[in-house]
């Protein structure tokens, strides 16, 4: 099986200091990955690289079997397949509907199909009927859910999530868990940075451990459907 992403000798430096140093990493399609590690371990940096929002300082990235060059046209095309949900997502200063429709318009989805996808995605996050509301007037939890709906509406091939449960209450987190857990079944690859290592989160997930920008021995495979935790790192992915 060919990986969706293959990272080789990828580093990212900021002002001379190394923020990320990954000798090799493969990410397979339709799988959920947890990015685990303390603050400052490079999780957000890795997500930004996977989202094609930041270029690595060195190394190569292959996506869907092709090496990613730095051309704007290539990056633009790839960003249509990969969506990153930031830790504190930014909602544009317009209605919830317009926020969710933004990415759809870019993809040429207009009229009734656009309306349908907006409504469907809002329903998925439990915010049916929120379309006409002003996005800036929403609570933190509602904003998080709208941002997830905005990403889901695009049916991305890869959904990258940076601490998606960081700003929401327990009830909302449970609901978001359910939505995110259903995505791999639809073929979406999920890479999620989180401090949440509850069994519900770990279930059926691969874990990518990071510390000080490097992969750690915590990188394990959580495999089976019964929630049994599998073996240590060194699995075929690394």
């Amino acid at each position, binding site marked *: 099986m060919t990986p969706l992403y293959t990272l080789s000798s990828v580093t990212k430096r900021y002002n001379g200091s190394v923020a990320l140093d990954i000798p090799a990493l493969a990410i397979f399609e339709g799988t959920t990955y947890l990015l685990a590690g303390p603050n400052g371990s490079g999780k957000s940096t890795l997500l930004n690289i996977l*989202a094609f*929002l930041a270029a690595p300082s060195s190394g190569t990235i292959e996506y869907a079997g092709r090496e990613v060059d730095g051309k*704007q046209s290539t990056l*633009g095309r790839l*960003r*249509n397949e*990969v*969506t*990153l949900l*930031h830790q*504190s*997502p*930014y909602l*544009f*200063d317009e209605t919830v509907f317009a926020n969710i429709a*933004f*990415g759809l318009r*870019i*993809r040429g989805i207009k009229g009734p199909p656009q309306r349908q996808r907006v409504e469907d995605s809002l329903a998925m996050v439990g915010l049916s009927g929120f379309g006409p509301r002003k996005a800036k007037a929403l609570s933190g939890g509602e904003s998080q859910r709208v941002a997830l709906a*905005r*990403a889901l509406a*695009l049916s991305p091939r890869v959904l990258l999530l940076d601490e998606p449960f960081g700003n929401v209450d327990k009830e909302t987190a449970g609901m978001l868990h359910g939505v995110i857990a259903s995505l791999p079944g639809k073929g979406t690859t999920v890479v999620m940075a989180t401090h949440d290592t509850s069994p519900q989160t770990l279930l059926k997930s691969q874990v990518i451990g990071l510390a000080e920008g490097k992969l750690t021995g915590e990188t394990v495979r959580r495999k089976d459907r019964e929630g049994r935790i599998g073996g240590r790192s060194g699995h075929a992915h690394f």
Partner: protein
Amino acid sequence: MRLILSLDADVFHAAWTSIHVSAWSILFASLLGIPLGLAAGMSEFAFKRMVLTILNTLIAVPTVLVGLLVYGFLSRQGPLGHFGLLFTPDAMVIGGTILITPIVANYSLNSAKGADRRILATALTLGAGRLRSTMKFVSEIRFGILAAVIAGFGRVISEVGVAMMLGGNIRGYTRTMTTAIALETSKGEFAFGVALGILLMTVALLTNIFLTLFQQR
């Protein structure tokens, strides 16, 4: 109020000239200053601090100095003298544009610099290209851009130096409200000058209300 209501055609022509010259000046200054300010605010480059210092300094340039410099270019002996622009509304527009472009650029720059860093990243990750992301960015900081336009307009409609030196205060042609106020006051018509001042403030207020309503749409 009686003085304002009894204003004659000359005064209304002066009001119209003020609005006309200010509108063209702010249009050109916006076309130059907004992209310049956004480019400087959204990117990091060598000598950025120096550019900011120069822009801040240009805001404080006296209007008569701008008038003097443009006068030098447009006067008969100047490099652009053959265009015959001196003492025309066009010359006033050129001077006004030069005067307020740094203001518009500076306000735009500060708005871009203070904007939420997540705007561009969000637009990009939702699939927008560079141009569309930038347009979205501008849309999100529209309050700051509008403030730039209002500040520039306020400066140009209320200045005297450029209008006097480049327009010549010609009755029925290049006389503006501010040059008319200066003239009336020098003639000892203080009350009439105050009445013109009130009219000037009213025009500025109505313009700002119009721009604010336009922005809220």
